[in-house]
């Protein structure tokens, strides 16, 4: 059985570790909870007009409505299972992981941002699959790289893991375009966990600004303009997804070095995506850099809020447990 495999090469942690972490949050991560919380008062509740078409069983988790407990199955197998109907299984979780090269950065964190994102994906997938949810995986870079359709079978986890291991880093990204094309490729409705550092939104807009203007004007307009563009680009993507019935959770993964910029020696900074290197005395630009980054992060958070997207900042130096609890807090 594939479950015997303990360590995956790309995640850096054992499966047992992932399972242990997943148990921490237990059944508290409910897609339905995400959807209900999100749509409360403004949309039709998915529980109305419940279909009578039986779809599958799943394990009972505390909080489930006892009316749906399959007493017969309990009598036969002495297990508490919940009967699920066709309508409910329409809620799928799509884990969308950023595989651009900027995610390969490892500064102060224990692992690279991309690996941390993959660990998050694996943990979320395990948790959701354990709860009988259907989970799919999409990796993207400049375009959509790979796609696993959502399934609720438990061995689907191993396919997800394999996909994570085999997926490649993509050198340059046009993430917003790729993400915009995503809803057409996925079945409608569901929850999308977008795991990214978001630099591609900024990256894109930065190109636009540089190309579209010259001289002192863009510099004088400053951070606000570019952050606003990044925000609008994200809102555009989020709204496109919402239009297809997706509820989006943005897991914004950043390295602690990106958040604090702790360098102190004169350094030649080289980008991971082939940008031109610049020699900078970090002390001189630290304050301005942090201002830029904060503005960007706030613009993403603001855009998420306006588009009905749950935003959660995940530091790659935090433990998985802490991050998952943080995610729980964000989505609850």
């Amino acid at each position, binding site marked *: 059985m594939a479950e015997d495999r303990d360590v995956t090469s790309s995640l850096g942690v054992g499966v047992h570790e992932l399972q242990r972490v997943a148990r921490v949050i237990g059944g508290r991560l409910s897609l339905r909870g995400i959807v209900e919380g999100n749509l409360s008062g403004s949309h039709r509740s998915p529980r109305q007009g419940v279909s009578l078409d039986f779809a599958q069983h799943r394990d009972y988790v505390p909080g489930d409505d006892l009316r749906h407990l399959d007493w017969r199955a309990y009598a036969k197998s002495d297990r508490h299972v919940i009967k699920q109907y066709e309508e409910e299984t329409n809620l799928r979780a799509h884990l969308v992981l950023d595989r651009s090269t900027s995610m390969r950065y490892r500064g102060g964190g224990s692992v690279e*941002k991309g690996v941390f994102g993959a660990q998050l994906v694996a943990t979320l997938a395990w948790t959701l699959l354990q709860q009988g949810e259907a989970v799919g995986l999409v990796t993207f870079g400049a375009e959509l790289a790979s796609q696993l359709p959502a399934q609720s079978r438990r061995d689907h986890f191993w396919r997800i893991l394999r996909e994570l291991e085999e997926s490649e880093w993509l050198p340059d990204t046009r993430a917003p375009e790729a993400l915009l094309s995503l809803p057409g490729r996925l079945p409608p409705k569901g929850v999308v966990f977008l795991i990214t550092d978001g630099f591609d939104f900024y990256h894109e807009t930065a190109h636009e600004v540089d190309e579209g203007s010259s001289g002192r004007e863009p510099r004088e307009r400053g951070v606000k303009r570019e952050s606003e563009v990044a925000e609008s680009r994200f809102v555009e993507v989020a709204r496109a997804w919402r239009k297809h019935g997706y509820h989006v959770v943005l897991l914004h993964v950043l390295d602690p070095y990106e958040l604090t910029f702790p360098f102190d020696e004169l350094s030649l900074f080289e980008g991971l*995506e082939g940008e031109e290197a610049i020699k900078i005395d970090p002390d001189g630009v630290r304050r301005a850099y942090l*201002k830029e980054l904060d503005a960007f992060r706030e613009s993403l958070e603001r855009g998420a809020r306006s588009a009905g997207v749950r935003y959660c900042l995940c530091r790659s130096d935090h433990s998985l447990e802490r991050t998952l609890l943080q995610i729980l807090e964000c989505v609850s």
Partner: protein
Amino acid sequence: MSFLAPWMLLGLFALAIPPILHLLNRREAKPVAFPAMEFLRRAYRKNARRIKMKQWLLLALRIALFAMLALALSQPIWSPRSNLLGESGVDPSELKGTQVIILDTSYSLAYQVSPEGRTLFDLARSHALRALSERDAPMALIVVGDAPRSVTQDLTADHDLLAESLRQLKVGEHVGDLGEATRLAYRMLRERPRDEAKSVTLLSAPSRYLEALPSAPVELGEVKLVKVDLSAELSGDVADTSSPPESSGELPVLSERDRARLVNHALLDLKLTPAPHMGEGQWRAEVRVAHYGDQPLTLWPIWVEIEGEVKVRGFVSLQPGEIGVKRLYFRAERSSDSPESSEPETSDKRGAEEGLRGWVKLAPDALPSDDQRPFWIEPAPPIKVLALNGDPRPTPQDDELFYLEKALAPEVIGRDRLSLMSRPTTRGELDPELLEGVDVIILANVPRPSAELGAQLKKHLERGGGVWLAPGARAQVSVWNQALRDLLPRPLRGARRAGDAAASLESRGAARFAQIEGGHPLFKPFDDVRRSNLNLASIQQYMLFDPEPPPRSEVVVTLNEGVPFMITREVGEGRVVLWASPLDREWADLVIRPDFVPLAAQTIRYLTREERGALTSVLLNEKLQIELNGSGPFSALSPRGDRRLLTRGEGRGTSAALGWTLDRVHPVGHHQVIAPASGASASTRRGADRELIARRFVVGLNPKISEIRAVSPSAEGAPSADSVKDQATVVSALAQRRELWHIGLIGLLLFALLEGVTLFQRRDERGVS
């Protein structure tokens, strides 16, 4: 501005360190992979100018830090040049028009300003030569010698002539009169047009610029009086565009510290007294030494030379500005093995044998001419004393003159000097032949001096002799008063027992000395006569005197009972000393006190007037005033062999001696007054032409300008030699200089603080993150 430690300016090379480190740092940028390049690039683009400015600021701060450090360590100083440049503060090089240069050749210009022997005068001459070469306008040169004189009659455009005269000038030993020289300069400028630019340039030692100088007469128009700071010339502040021909090299540039190390001190005066209590032929030289340096003077050698032979050596240690007194005891005798050829005046060997030439010398310093003072040791003439013993006893210690004879023993007063003749007498009639050649006559308790004796004594006194009267129990008061009425300092009234008259004889007690005139010549051997053991003498009985004093008498000692004990009187040319007790122990135990010995010897000297003509000392270029017996003509023989006739002056003439004067005595050294053999009372023969040496005197350097630095004018008016001596505190120009090293230090701290703030801001940014 100059530097005390200019070599520290080499530290300015350290200014290159920050740029080098800066360049090294630029080369060693560490590559760092970073994903958020867009943010970084934007942050950098927005702050590039500020970052660069900050980096340049840091670089500049660090360079300034090193600069300030080097500046502080080099100890910059600023000397107030305006003090030396006169009221106008004019740079001499900016002067236009007619110029009169006043060049001081006083001895203080011989001050050596460099170890190579370059003097202030050399600097002054260099300056003058440069001024001559730079101008075409008419100029004049006034040399401040013994008297100021102009090289040319009038202003001249022949600068070569002036330059030639300049090159032949030398420093003298005199103290030039700058005021008179300035007046002469104004007189020379009088013929020039009123609207012409005129200037008077004064070249002298800095201290002399503090003297009050006359201002230019109104009819001359504006005349700039420029006092040239020669120390600035030395430090190179004034560009030396044309070196004087005699000094092909550049001016030696000394730092202030090097100059401060050059010691300057001076012998201010010399007091020479016999010191018989130290032994036969012993003398005491008491010199006052002033120290004008900035560093303490430690164990600086001083010695006494007699005829070229060092007799005693000592050391002086003085603090800056201090004036100290040094006493040196020495035996004044010619060394038997000293060669005659060492005499400076070989032509006058006989004269030199009889008077000893002496010098007190300090080890030479930057200004050597004021470090020595001459003196004469004159052969003391033999003293003949005739003592009339009115109470002779067979037992020596009971004899009236026993103690006096002991006190005047040859080993005390000087071998071969004193001959004491004793004559027992009751009436004191004297054979006139016995009086021949007698200097002092002592009447020791003579019972009934005759009228004849009184007349003889009066005559003796008028000739300049001395009489010592010591009446005792045997003296008959009325006879004394009658016979000696013309010479007694006070008439006698009778003997009185000391103490309480109502008490019994055993318990009456004794009288003691209560008031002693310490400054009287009788007490010259005593440093402080009040502390001498004369005060321990107990006087059981004494002679009471009449309270009415005759003219020219003085009470020298008074007893605690208010009565005079010792009285002097001048009669004619002679002197009388009257004691209120005899010279034995009958009435008082004074004669057994140890200090009776110097007192008795000094009394004899006093009565012979030995101190009157001894050790005449005149300052250079001053007027000599002496009393000489005889009608002259007298001439002064200088150490160089020059002769000048003395003129009759206003001195206190008597029947025997007349006042004689000589103006502007020079040079420094040992001088002699020569008299024709027939007209002089001096006993020394000089040469084969029957000339006699009537008197010896020394001419010493006037030390009032030995302090070459600009001292504060604490003394009112023109400073005399005495006022220089009495200056307790000397404020020097070096003390007035402003040290600027602390400005460098403050700059250092300021820049360090600024750099700290800049770095702290960077750290703060890191902390914020």
